[in-house]
């Protein structure tokens, strides 16, 4: 009798103890569109099911540009959340330097993140002075030209297979009353499209010289002159596209009003939601069909330092869970992005995702400009790009000169 009693007492103690450890962990992110919200819900589900902690969703509406100042404000203002999204790269650099982020190195060594994470450059972006401060969770690449089969059928031309064919087919589309290139009016889209054209048309070496080594001479050189001319051409093709948001532009492809769009792989989520099938209703050309290369930008989670051992334990559990095979598959299938580990099986992936996975496996990858340039430099380039894309009289030479100046000043 006494034994059972003490046993009961112990079990109740244990359960009471574990209940006290359960932590409500607030996670902030800017994933609010349909596919994105579904993807992040997978993380929440796994976290709630597999641990005793609770995921408190802190979605911030608006794109990263709106959300990041709020997140940074909360962290520097002394009201840190449990975990927060940033893009890979330099966005949180100074927060880490200021010692505001939790050091994940011990966990990373225990779970061999160095061997798991592919490509390793993702983990390098999380590393400062040999310590690891973030969990990369997905890979998003910008280098895709999406094409609407409906638009090309109605115009009576074949669906292009590379950038030159795309430009050649444009007059037929315009005759049919369609817009050859859909382009949202926001600076990050215009800058992104230019980046894609730079990798495809100037080549990897020139792109790396400018974006990684910040070599202003190459930025002013003949390779980039070609890119700026092509961009001026693309500008003319997108002249009549009166939309702002990227998903509105993608919608023009879905409804057959526009022929193509240069946009990252997140555009695929929109096609999927609309019930279109890759290869039948739309197709994708990585690297504009010229250079099959993808850049490995994406999202990572940072864990602000909170002076509470229980919270810290919960943060580490979440970090470990986000990188687990199960979470990687569940999240990335919904998000349309590629997983950060090569040892997971994405059978359910569609054609376009599979092409991305192949390119990733073959190692034709580059870092994302967000990883190599500071937000300040990126911002200056965006200002210049948006002016260039929206003003048909802005010459390619002027734009290139200014671009080289910004690169020369970059830090």
């Amino acid at each position: 009798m006494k034994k059972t009693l003490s046993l009961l007492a112990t079990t109740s103690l244990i359960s009471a103890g574990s209940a006290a450890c359960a932590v409500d962990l607030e996670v902030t992110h800017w994933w609010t569109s349909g596919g994105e919200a579904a993807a992040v819900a997978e993380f929440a589900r796994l976290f709630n099911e597999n641990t005793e902690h609770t995921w408190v969703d802190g979605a911030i509406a608006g794109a990263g540009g709106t959300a990041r100042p709020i997140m940074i404000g909360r962290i520097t203002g002394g009201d840190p959340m449990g975990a927060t999204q940033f893009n890979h790269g330099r966005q949180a650099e100074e927060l880490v330097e200021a010692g505001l982020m939790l050091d994940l190195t011990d966990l990373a060594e225990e779970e061999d993140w160095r061997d798991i994470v592919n490509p390793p450059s993702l983990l390098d972006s999380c590393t400062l002075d040999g310590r690891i401060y973030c969990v990369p969770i997905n890979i998003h690449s910008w280098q895709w030209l999406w094409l609407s089969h409906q638009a090309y059928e109605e115009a009576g031309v074949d669906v292009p297979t590379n950038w030159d064919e795309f430009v050649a087919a444009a007059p037929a589309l315009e005759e049919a009353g369609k817009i050859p290139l859909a382009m949202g009016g926001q600076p990050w889209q215009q800058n992104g499209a230019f980046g894609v054209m730079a990798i495809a048309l100037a080549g990897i070496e020139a792109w790396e010289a400018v974006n990684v080594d910040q070599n202003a001479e190459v930025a002013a050189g003949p390779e980039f002159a070609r890119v700026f001319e092509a961009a001026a051409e693309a500008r003319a093709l997108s002249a009549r596209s009166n939309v702002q948001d990227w998903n509105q532009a993608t919608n023009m492809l879905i409804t057959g009003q526009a022929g193509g769009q240069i946009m990252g792989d997140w555009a695929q989520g929109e096609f999927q939601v609309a019930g279109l099938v890759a290869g039948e209703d739309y197709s994708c050309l990585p690297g504009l069909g010229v250079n099959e290369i993808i850049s490995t930008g994406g999202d990572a989670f940072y864990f602000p330092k909170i002076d509470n051992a229980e919270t810290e334990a919960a943060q580490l559990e979440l970090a470990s869970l986000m990188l687990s095979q199960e979470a990687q598959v569940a999240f990335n299938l919904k998000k349309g992005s590629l997983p950060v580990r090569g040892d997971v099986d994405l059978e359910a992936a569609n054609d376009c995702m599979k092409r991305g996975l192949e390119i990733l496996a073959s190692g034709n990858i580059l870092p994302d400009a967000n990883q190599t340039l500071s937000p300040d430099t990126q911002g200056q380039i965006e200002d210049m790009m948006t002016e260039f894309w929206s003003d048909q009289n802005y010459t390619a030479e002027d734009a290139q000169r200014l671009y080289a100046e910004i690169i020369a000043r970059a830090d």
Partner: protein
Amino acid sequence: MSRARRGTAPVRPPIRLFRNLSSKIAAIPMVLVGLGVFVGGTIWTVVYSFTDSRLLPRLQFVGFEQYERLWSTRRWLVSIENLAIYGIVSLVFTMCLGFLLAALLDRKIRFEDTFRTIFLYPFALSFIVTGLVWQWLLNPDFGIQSVVRSMGFPNFNFDPLYNSDLVLIGLLIAGLWQGTGLIMVIMLAGLRSIDEDIWKATRVDGIPIWKTYIIVIIPMMKPVFVTALVLVTSGIVKLYDLVVAMTSGGPGISSEVPAKYVYDTLFTRQNLGQGFAASTMMLVTVAIILIPWAYMQFREKRQ
């Protein structure tokens, strides 16, 4: 003092500092907040505008580098130009329209209350809502342009928000729609405070109504005009939310304004030094306008 030394009854004058002591004590928190938040914050901002602070402030002085970069940045120059154009046009139009509407309402028309409410209603909306409403109205595919086209004018073109040359007009339409009502009400109050006898006197003298307004009424309403002017100008300098809601600076950078440059560099671009330099320049601009005005006001009072 000299009398006190001679030993006569010391009648001390009340110390000025202690006059109205309780009200002065009550004002202390306000004064401290004013000094700490406004003056202290301003000094802090100006000091850090001479550093190379990025995401977090740090005291690493770089001289006038941030200002040199600021004044060689095209976006900043465009912003200043836009604000100047928007400011002047909006000032002239709000004052003129506001006065005109008030004068018309003051002619003892029927349904005055209804009209006054209609004109004042937009002011109850925030700039964000105003901006979104007009963004839809001016959208060529859904708004005014498509309505007029569907009425049988297929060549009608009106898409100011998508045309760099006309985008300021789009902003002005929305800004005027929102702000004129308030100025009208202030002017109307001013007109109502004018003595009825003045109107009678001018009628006896046979002065036409429009002339009465210009040579008699408007000069008498000077304080009302000053109030309206201060309200309109302060609204112009802080122009930000309307732009964000309507164009977010586009097309290109053709509708950027200084306040938006400050916000973007401070927060999204993580460059505090540059943002502080820009906000210091905004402060200097405001000071250049306000100091002569304040000086004049104080001198008048002293006289």
